[in-house]
């Protein structure tokens, strides 16, 4: 009923292309994330699904019906805005009931639904407050309540947590996810925060420059990034991508041959958390600085003229640059074509 399918969706403003031939499918009951850096077209895509923005090209279908040019109100979906878009002159109750009043729902039914929704989002005691009298987190809940009271099968969320502080964001992530599962909603959630995407999504659609870089489950994006962009966007700190030099049998970093079977220039990818310091073997690096995070330390280092990050447990201090050796397991190495950025699985990583 609420499967959303985009085929060849494009958005143009004159010459400028915002979203370029994007196709994906979100199954009923799925929590899908549109992830990408700012300006990648994720919000525009969401707004096209909502019907707030016209589709220049392509077909949008919801529940098997072509909804490409259906008015927003007839698409049976709710939306949570980044700014919450609460009506400042209406109190919480009136804000939540706004849509039901527009649709002339009988008062008795409104009252039951309001009580139920207020209970779910934990706003029961605040119904007569104005939005200006609420904290950021409470406003967020009002926006959520307004979205779910319509009992639409689909809910679109445009960076709903970006105005909250870190701790609250963490709590709301869990709550929104739990709410989605409890109500069985199909959610499309826009964010630029990859941690949010990884922790909440059933499916992540990574966009860059108006195009889809990769789509799949969070662990697929982490374990097998399809492009160098996906590799560097997913994970904190991001994956190290090192330029390699072609040698007879393969490719080398700073004189050490690390790959074989390469075909032209390629990028060698290894995540900071998959590297470790060693006494012998590995490659030599120069440690430059350390960023202590509590349970681990992110060490910035140099290999030849390239920078890398290495994650290591405990607290490491680097008062002045010092030489060290790092190594990795070959199964954690990712190789990308230097030109196209595509993943290349034909190259074999050599143990070092």
């Amino acid at each position, binding site marked *: 009923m609420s499967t959303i399918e985009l085929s060849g969706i494009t958005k143009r403003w004159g010459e400028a292309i915002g979203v370029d031939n994007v196709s994906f499918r979100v199954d009923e009951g799925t929590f899908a994330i549109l992830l990408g850096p700012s300006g990648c077209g994720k919000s525009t895509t969401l707004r096209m699904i*909502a019907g707030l923005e016209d589709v220049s090209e392509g077909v949008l279908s919801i529940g098997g019906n072509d909804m490409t040019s259906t008015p927003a109100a007839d698409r049976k979906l709710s*939306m949570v805005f980044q700014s919450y878009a609460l009506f400042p*002159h209406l109190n919480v109750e009136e804000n939540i009931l706004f849509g039901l009043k*527009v649709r002339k729902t009988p008062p008795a039914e409104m009252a039951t639904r309001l009580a139920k929704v207020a209970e779910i989002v934990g706003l029961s005691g605040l119904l007569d407050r104005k939005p200006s009298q609420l904290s950021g987190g409470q406003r967020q809940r009002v926006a959520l309540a307004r979205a779910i009271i319509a009992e639409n099968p689909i809910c679109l969320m445009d960076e709903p947590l970006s105005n909250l502080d870190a701790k609250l964001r963490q709590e709301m992530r869990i709550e929104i996810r739990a709410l989605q599962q409890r109500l069985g909603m199909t959610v499309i959630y826009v964010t630029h925060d990859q941690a949010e995407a990884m922790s909440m999504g059933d499916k992540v659609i990574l966009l860059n420059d108006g195009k889809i870089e990769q789509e799949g489950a969070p662990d697929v994006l982490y374990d097998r990034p399809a492009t160098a962009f996906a590799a560097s966007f997913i994970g904190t700190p991001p994956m190290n991508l090192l330029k390699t030099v072609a040698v007879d049998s393969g490719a080398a970093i700073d004189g050490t041959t690390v790959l074989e079977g390469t075909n032209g220039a390629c990028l060698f990818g290894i995540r900071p958390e998959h590297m470790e310091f060693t006494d012998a073997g590995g490659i030599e690096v120069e440690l430059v600085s350390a960023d202590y995070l509590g349970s681990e330390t992110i060490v910035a280092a140099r290999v030849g003229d390239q920078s890398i990050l290495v994650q290591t447990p405990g607290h490491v201090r680097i008062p002045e640059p010092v030489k060290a050796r790092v190594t990795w397991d070959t199964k954690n190495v990712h190789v990308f074509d230097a030109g196209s950025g595509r993943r290349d699985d034909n190259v074999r990583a050599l143990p070092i």
Partner: protein
Amino acid sequence: MSRRISQSYIYGWLLLMPAAIFLIAFTYYPAVATLAKSFFSQGTALKPSEFVGFENFAYMLDDDVFWKVAWNNIMYAVGTIPISIALAILMAVWVNGKLPLRSITRMAYFTPTILPMIAVANIWLFFYTPDIGLLDQVSAVFGLPSHNWLGDPDTVLGCIIAITIWKEAGFFMIFYLAALQTLPPELEEAARLEGASRWYYFRRVMFPLLMPTTLFVLINAVINSFKLVDHLFILTKGGPDNASSLLLYYIYEVAFSFLDQAYASTLTVVLLLMLALIAVGQFYFLDKRVHYR
């Protein structure tokens, strides 16, 4: 210690003095003097001014012309304010949207405001002139008889009202336009997603959020309707038979044509009291209904 305090007092008062002198000389003294004068008779060479208590006010209550101009002024206010505010909102919503030649349209609506009232009155004088004026030229095409718009007591006030609306609506539009641009577009989108029609959105969201502007505009419009007289000098001089005279114009006539400053002061006091009462009423009744962000 106390010397330093008294020094800084003197310093403070010296800084305040220039502004204070002007305020007292041109605002407070005239106001108090006017109030005082309204309790005295008009002095002449033979009969000096003397305290008469409320005699001037009693005379006013018996003055048919006063009642006539007061009634005219109420009709003028009722005729101009709601229509110019409604037009202002309509124009503001219209030019706030996507529109070809938007800035030119905005400017066109605002043009009447920047014209001096005297020039406006002259332009409209050409419209209203019998036989050769624009209105009569147009009505002649449809075979209607010529009409002396400003010479007929039945139409003259309506003509003045039309001019004022034409001039003020564009001015108020600027305030509404500014207020509309502070409304986040997401509110409209959120309402649209819920299936609210444009009218529903206007009634339930946009208009209530414009209430602070409406209150401001309303008070300005009321004050203006008692304050604007420039066009009367050019167009009608209050005639015919005081049919287009307004309170302030009548005060001017009494003070400078009939040279009865005592009675003019009385009328001024009454006008000020009325304005104060209206302003207090507006704040008292409307403030509770206004949502300030």
